[in-house]
């Protein structure tokens, strides 16, 4: 007799093999690479108790850094939502010269190392840079100001929005739009009432991803931000500074808050997608 499957009552048998092996590998690997290190991080900031943790987080400098990181990430995500939608629409719906090249460039922020993006952006937007010089003349300073942070975050976030909605746009049949037109809707009404609602979940997903990525971004920002405490100092940089000041609980406390925030965002996103997929 072959070995019966009744030995394991906890899990129903499955026709496709390898579940336990692959899940085991997955969990083991995750533990080693991400979970244990993050657990170490979670344990760190409590050396002075909960009160100490709160004190660290409510210091004006930390609050300002968190506000800056989350705030500029949110603004950058919104900018990306608007422009990403427009870019994705243009690239999927219209045919024009160099469309392929522009489309391929969208992935650049995925492929270009953040440190390279950082030095390139700061060279470009510095007072004597190609864009910095003309902007300076009309009184706009980008490099070494919070605006510079925004530019860097828009840079790294764009592909998330575009690449999330592009396939949905490409899959969307023209029939619904044509149907709307036959029912007497103007083009604008069709876009607002047929196209946009269809895209909304993907747009939201992409925007959230861009936001989540931007909150933690370090490499591209530190070169272009002025890194001025309470003005242009982002939370990840403050973590590094705390680390360099031998303030491990301080560094870890900020790290923990950022970790919790990103995990909450991702969990919400995955739950949302599950709900939408069930619709």
């Amino acid at each position, binding site marked *: 007799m072959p070995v019966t499957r009744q030995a394991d009552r906890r899990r129903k048998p499955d026709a496709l093999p390898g579940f336990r092996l692959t899940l085991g590998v997955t969990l083991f690997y995750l533990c080693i690479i991400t979970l244990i290190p993050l657990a170490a991080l979670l344990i760190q900031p409590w050396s002075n108790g909960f009160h100490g943790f709160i004190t660290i987080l409510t210091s004006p*400098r930390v609050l300002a850094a968190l506000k800056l990181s989350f705030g500029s990430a949110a603004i950058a995500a919104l900018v990306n939502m608007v422009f990403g939608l427009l870019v994705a629409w243009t690239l999927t719906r219209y045919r024009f010269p160099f469309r392929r090249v522009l489309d391929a460039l969208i992935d650049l922020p995925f492929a270009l190392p953040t440190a390279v993006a950082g030095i390139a952006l700061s060279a470009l937007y510095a*007072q*004597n840079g190609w864009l910095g010089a003309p902007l300076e003349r009309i009184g706009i300073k980008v490099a*070494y100001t919070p605006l510079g942070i925004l530019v860097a975050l828009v840079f790294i976030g764009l592909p998330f929005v575009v690449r999330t909605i592009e396939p949905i746009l490409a899959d969307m049949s023209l029939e619904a739009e044509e149907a709307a037109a036959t029912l007497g809707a103007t083009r604008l009404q069709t876009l607002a009432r047929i196209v946009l609602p269809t895209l909304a979940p993907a747009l939201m997903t992409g925007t959230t991803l861009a936001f989540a990525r931007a909150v933690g971004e370090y490499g591209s920002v530190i070169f272009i931000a*002025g*890194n*001025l405490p309470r003005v242009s100092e982002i939370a990840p940089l403050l973590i590094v500074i705390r*680390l360099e000041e031998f303030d491990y609980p301080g560094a870890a406390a900020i790290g923990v808050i950022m970790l919790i925030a990103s995990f909450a965002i991702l969990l919400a996103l995955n739950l949302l997608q599950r709900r939408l997929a069930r619709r």
Partner: protein
Amino acid sequence: MARMTVAAIVVAALAAATIPAAPARAAGRTLLNVSYDPTRELYQALNPLFAKEWKQETGGTVDIEMSHSGSGSQARAVIDGLDADVVTLALASDIDAIAQKAHLLPPDWQKRLPDDSTPYTSTIVFLVRQGNPKKITDWPDLIKPGVQVITPNPKTSGAARWAFLAAWAWAAHRPGGNAQTAKAYVAALYKHVPILTTGARGSTTAFVERGIGDVLLSWENEADLAQAQLGPGRFAIVYPSSSILAEPPVALLDKNVDRHGTRKVAEAYLKFLYSKPAQEIEARNHYRPRDPQVLSEYSREFPPLKLYTIEAEFGGWAKAQAKYFGDGGIFDQIYTHGR
């Protein structure tokens, strides 16, 4: 595709196999010198000379590896296990921290070598743009309306801490000056600082390359370097009426050298920094040599100015670090009240 995966794994295995060979240190042959940002050119010049001398004296070869970053972050790395044999940092309190937190060397390390373990000194000077358009000649000019001052973050940068203390000492010593007026002056000064980089290099970059600010509070050697390398004629060095005697100390890390078996060569290396040929190189790299003879040879390069010392003015680094730059210290107060 399967073949690709296999190929990738083979490549990885090969790569992994070569790794242990690469960083393996032959015992006693390699020194890791963990230093701060601006000393790169200095040690690039010093190390080959030492290797040559060492070979002549002992017949052995020595490779010196360098690590450069902000002084504070380097101390942090050493505390976290960066396996340095010697540290050559920007200020004593960073090495104090290594002694306190990692116990890699005794607390009285600074007494072990001559001149408080500082083979060369430096000071903080002003670097201004060509023609000095804002007419900056001394400390009071820095807080004139419209002047932008570039200096790094004192929390992480050694140069910034020296600059902070130089400003403080000047303000405290002017007629009628005291701790109160000094604090007011420094607070006013930091209101003129538009960006605060983590290290000296970052602020020099911002000033020189990115064109931000009117005056850079800089290491003397860094200012010379910026002038020489980055833009001859684009900048001018201004010596204020007074500054601070900046003493970047050196030390060997007893626990690490004993583990590596490198004590002898590390000791020789640090002693070498006081030798005449080394002092010459230091002078040529715009560090003020301790050797009076060498100093006088290069006196043209180092205009005399009133230099306050950390010992006399601030009671040593241990005290100054906590009072001015610790959590809730004077720098924090200035910043909290400032913006």
